[in-house]
């Protein structure tokens, strides 16, 4: 089987591979020899299962995510759709203001859609969003979880706020537009979540 590694992070590598004749992405979690085999195997299979579950569930609620084709719990491999698009991180700064606003509102709506169903992404950054056509796909639910607490939703959005501050610092109003979209779609009172984001900022150690 041919495979090409397109990204290697600390936890997994992302490969382009073939599955039943067509191009797919495989996320392969890496074994770590520094930790006990019992811990390593359990972490890899749990994290693979949790991630696949979250992606499948998010799709059911209308959030654009890659289609999952296969999950291998033993070796920690998720085989999924190859999204041929552009990372939002790479294009956001080059958009015209009205388009950027529209895109951010769309992102906010999607986040609200999975938050409505207690799905926490865990690493919402513009590197984890792929624009294909006019749809923003969310990838990498590796740090995600199911959680209904407003606190956790606030933390989830706080990650995006920090990501926008660092990668798109000239366009910090982006986060405001994300929140605008988020408010429109969230069933719960979005102001409670927004209040939490402010709390999270204040809460860092020694602040």
């Amino acid at each position, binding site marked *: 089987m041919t495979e090409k590694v397109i990204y290697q992070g*600390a936890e997994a590598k992302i490969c382009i591979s073939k599955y039943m004749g067509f191009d797919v992405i495989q996320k392969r979690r890496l074994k*770590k*020899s*520094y930790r006990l085999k*019992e*811990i390593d195997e359990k972490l890899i299979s749990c994290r693979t299962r949790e991630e696949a579950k979250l992606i499948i569930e998010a799709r059911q609620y209308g959030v654009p995510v890659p289609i999952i084709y296969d999950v291998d719990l033993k070796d920690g491999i998720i085989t999924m759709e190859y999204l041929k698009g552009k990372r939002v991180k790479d294009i956001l700064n080059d958009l015209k203001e009205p388009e950027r606003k529209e895109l951010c509102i769309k992102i906010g709506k999607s986040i609200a859609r999975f938050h409505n169903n207690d799905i926490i992404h865990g690493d919402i950054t513009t590197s984890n969003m792929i624009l294909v056509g006019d749809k923003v796909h969310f990838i990498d639910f590796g*740090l995600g979880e199911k959680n209904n607490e407003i606190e956790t939703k606030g*933390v989830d959005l706080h990650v995006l706020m920090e990501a926008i501050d660092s990668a798109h610092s000239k366009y910090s109003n982006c986060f405001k537009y994300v929140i605008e979209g988020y408010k429109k779609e969230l069933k719960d009172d979005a102001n409670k979540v927004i209040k939490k984001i402010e709390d999270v900022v204040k809460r860092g150690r*020694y*602040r």
Partner: protein
Amino acid sequence: MICLGIEGTAHSVGVGVVKEDNTKCKVMSNLIKTYMPEQGGIHPREAANHHALHIADLIKESVKEAKIDFSDIDLVSFSRGPGLGPCLRTAATAARALSLSLEKPIMGVNHCIAHLEIGPGTLDGCDDPVLLYTSGANTQVIAFAEGRYRVFGETLDIGIGNCLDKFGRSVGLEFPAGPKIEKLAIKGKKYLELPYSIKGMDIAFSGLLTAAEQYYKKGEKLEDICYSIQETTFAALTEVTERAMAHTEKDQVLLGGGVAANSRLRDMVNTMAKERNASFFVPSKDLCVDNGAMIAWLGVIMYNSGIRMEIKDSVIDQRFRTDMVDVIWRD
């Protein structure tokens, strides 16, 4: 330049003298006295009293051991924080008194950053590391990015040392429990499952602490529990350190803090570094724990970069965050 540094953030009071030698740090003396509570944890006032009792003698002895005269000192440095208020104030007061009587400048420094800078200061090949700083109160992964030392991951509840000490106390091991847990862990064979709690780049230990105490109450062997605590917490620490290295694209890792003395933690981080083709560094033990030499060295670096401090501004800061300091000496 010769600098005398005073450390007193928690249970240790330390005085060190360092000399700048061609941009490297030469430690001329480094004396530490540690407050040992008769029972329980650190009482801030008792610790501060302990520091006040010993600090004058430590200053004299450290100057004597460095084989210098008081008049040879060019700078007095002290840890401004983070730490316990009464302890910080004692060290800062001593620093001010010394600075005024010698008529030499004073410099208040960040304790966590001192733990990082002593690595590049004393170790060859270590110039821009990711620091895994593990001590009683502090558990942080720190690296330089965009003008500051950023905290890429940290504990959300208690420090790893604190976790080990608390477990130790609940099973009758004396403070500090870390070294005793390390010895027991070597004899442990059975892995008991414990919560492995990582949230993004951050880490939490309190759930694991409770679970470990439950195992003890249920009659599991202490050796096995100690083994499982070490394997679980250190694996999680190594994992967040690796994530920070991948994120910042740095290929050096440095250990600091008292828990860095643990061989199993060293092994794990070293293995991780090897797998990433990264270099692994750990300062000598007396420079890993809270000590005056690292405070003196950071004072030297800051002074050389043009930073100055007036006596009236030499106030302590119990909540002095790592990322509050403008790091103008790096680019």
